[in-house]
């Protein structure tokens, strides 16, 4: 036996990727004036960590309703939604709030920043809810704002910022508790082309660099093009 021949090295098998969120047969209907409206019908898909998924569809196709369910702001009428191994359909309100606070970061089309609060204070809100001390909160918020290029606008209030800057504050806020899931509802809908590109770059960087899952609801083909995967909603059904 020649010792010059390298011995075979055992390469561990890559574990099968466990999806961060799994949606199976999910439906959501509303009753308005006695009439049932089925908004989501039999939605099934999953999203893994590190993945950017775009949900596209026409207006009224149920995109925002789906996002609300994924963000634990709404409960499905039937079907199941498992988030990070937890079946969320049976969760009580307190647990849902905690899971939402710890596991989900929201980026809204209209930013939803708190008026008359500085960028620093806005980014700090999720950390207040998470019980982070004031000192650590401030340091972390500053770090995040610097990372989105707003280190010079720490004390600016929302009305003093441009749309792109506000969305970057919102993004920093969404990342403040390092959630495994970022949900973005038309994040570029109110922005110009340059700002849109910058926000998408940062969302993709978050997915790739921090192993987060990013779900973007959009009707913008340019945004959808940049996603790893596209889920299309047609009349409440996933395709």
């Amino acid at each position, binding site marked *: 036996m020649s010792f010059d021949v390298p011995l075979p090295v055992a390469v561990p098998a890559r574990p099968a990727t466990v999806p961060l969120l799994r949606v199976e047969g999910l439906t959501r209907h509303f009753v308005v004036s006695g009439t049932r409206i089925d908004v989501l019908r039999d939605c099934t898909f999953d999203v893994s960590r590190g993945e950017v998924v775009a949900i596209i569809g026409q207006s009224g196709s149920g995109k925002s309703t789906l996002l*609300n369910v994924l*963000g634990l*702001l*709404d409960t499905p009428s039937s079907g199941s939604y498992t988030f990070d191994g937890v079946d969320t359909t049976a969760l009580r*309100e*307190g647990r849902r*709030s*905690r899971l*939402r*606070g*710890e596991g*989900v970061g*929201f980026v*809204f089309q209209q930013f*939803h920043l*708190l*008026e*008359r*609060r500085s960028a620093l*204070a806005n980014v700090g*809100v*999720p950390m*207040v*809810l*998470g*019980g982070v001390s004031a000192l650590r909160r401030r340091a972390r918020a500053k770090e995040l704002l610097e990372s989105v290029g707003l280190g010079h606008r720490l004390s600016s209030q929302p009305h003093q910022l441009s749309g792109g800057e506000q969305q970057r504050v919102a993004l920093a*806020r969404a990342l403040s*508790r390092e959630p495994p899931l970022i949900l973005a509802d038309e994040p570029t809908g109110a922005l110009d082309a340059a700002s849109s590109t910058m926000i998408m770059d940062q969302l993709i960087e978050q997915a790739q660099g921090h192993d987060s899952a990013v779900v973007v609801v959009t009707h913008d083909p340019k945004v959808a093009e940049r996603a790893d995967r596209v889920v299309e909603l047609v009349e409440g059904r996933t395709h």
Partner: protein
Amino acid sequence: MLRSLTAGIVLAFAGSRANVTRTILSCAGIVVGVGALIMVVTAGDLGQRYATAFSEANAGRAATIEAMVYNPINDLAAYEEDLVRAGAQDVSLYQSPQNDTLFRSGDEAIESVSVTGVDATLSDIRRINLAEGRWFTEADQESRAPVLVVNQSLADFLGDQTELQMGTDRWIDVRVVGVSESSALDGDWYSAYLLRSPVSEEIIFGPSWDSEIGGFQGGGEDMGVTHLARVDPSDSAADQMDGGTEFTERMESARWRWSTDDQFEYFAYRSDFSEETDIVITVMSAGLLVIAGITLTTGLLGVLNVGLVTVRERRRELATYRALGASRFTLFVAVVMESVVVSVVAGIIALLLSFALVAAAGAIIGNFVALPPDITMTVPPSAVLVGLLSAAFVGLLAGIIPAIRALRASVVAGLRE
């Protein structure tokens, strides 16, 4: 739970700071209401202290009985022992001299000095406020000259007190050991307390007094004696409604020890008016409390209204909190605590205004009336406590309904606004 509570409080403080206009609007009603309450408690406290001081200085501490016997007493020591047996804890002579007492300082005569013969124990029965010198002591009994405590008006008139003389039929040197403070409780007239002692007994009791037997000789109208006796307020003899009957009966039962007169003429009554004062203060405070309560309720409704309006206006903000992970409890605490924070801030403002107002009132009143030395115009601790607690309570009440409304609101609908 604790984290939610803490987060709610932090958000409440941040919200109050960020929404200054809302905070000021909410504050206004509470400032008036809490201020009114603080002023009521302050006025009640001041009235109580002033009335107590007035009563204690002019009529005696609770319960003081003024006892007058019109029969000639042939053993005053036995009579005073029986006053104690009848329930008196402290006894002092309180006798105006039978003959006019004149004073002079150098060549200058002073008329119309109201003299009262007393014992040193009077200070246990009545509040004596001294501006200078001291009150009588046991040692003053041995003095070869009558010992006096004069009031401020007389002291001011006398100037050099060392040359003071008094007399009924002849002048004798007297010694002034103290000056009682002039206050709103005194008039401008001249008055003096004369300590009962061997050298002053004849001045106090008149020519019928026999110091050998310690009683009066003969019989006549000029032989009445007046005492002040302080009894336990819970003693049935102190009952205002009783009118001194019980105390009189107790004294009558022992009359044989100190009087041989067949006719018993005795008059005893409760001379302090602490009970009447309490009733007046209670009624007055109740009336003022009702007014303050109405004002405070108006303030509460104001905060409630602002709270309800702002919760409606803040649906998007509150929904954002929920989306960022705030639980219902956190949101409830945040909304309620915002109301409490606003109310307590209003309470503090009301408190500061009350302090300023009371100080200004004290300065103005001080120009017209000299208050007793131990009565200062200030906001008492009880008013501070009542003011701040009521502010917090009103905030709590006014915050609950908007908080419940905030919880009922749909998060999804709020985010769409």
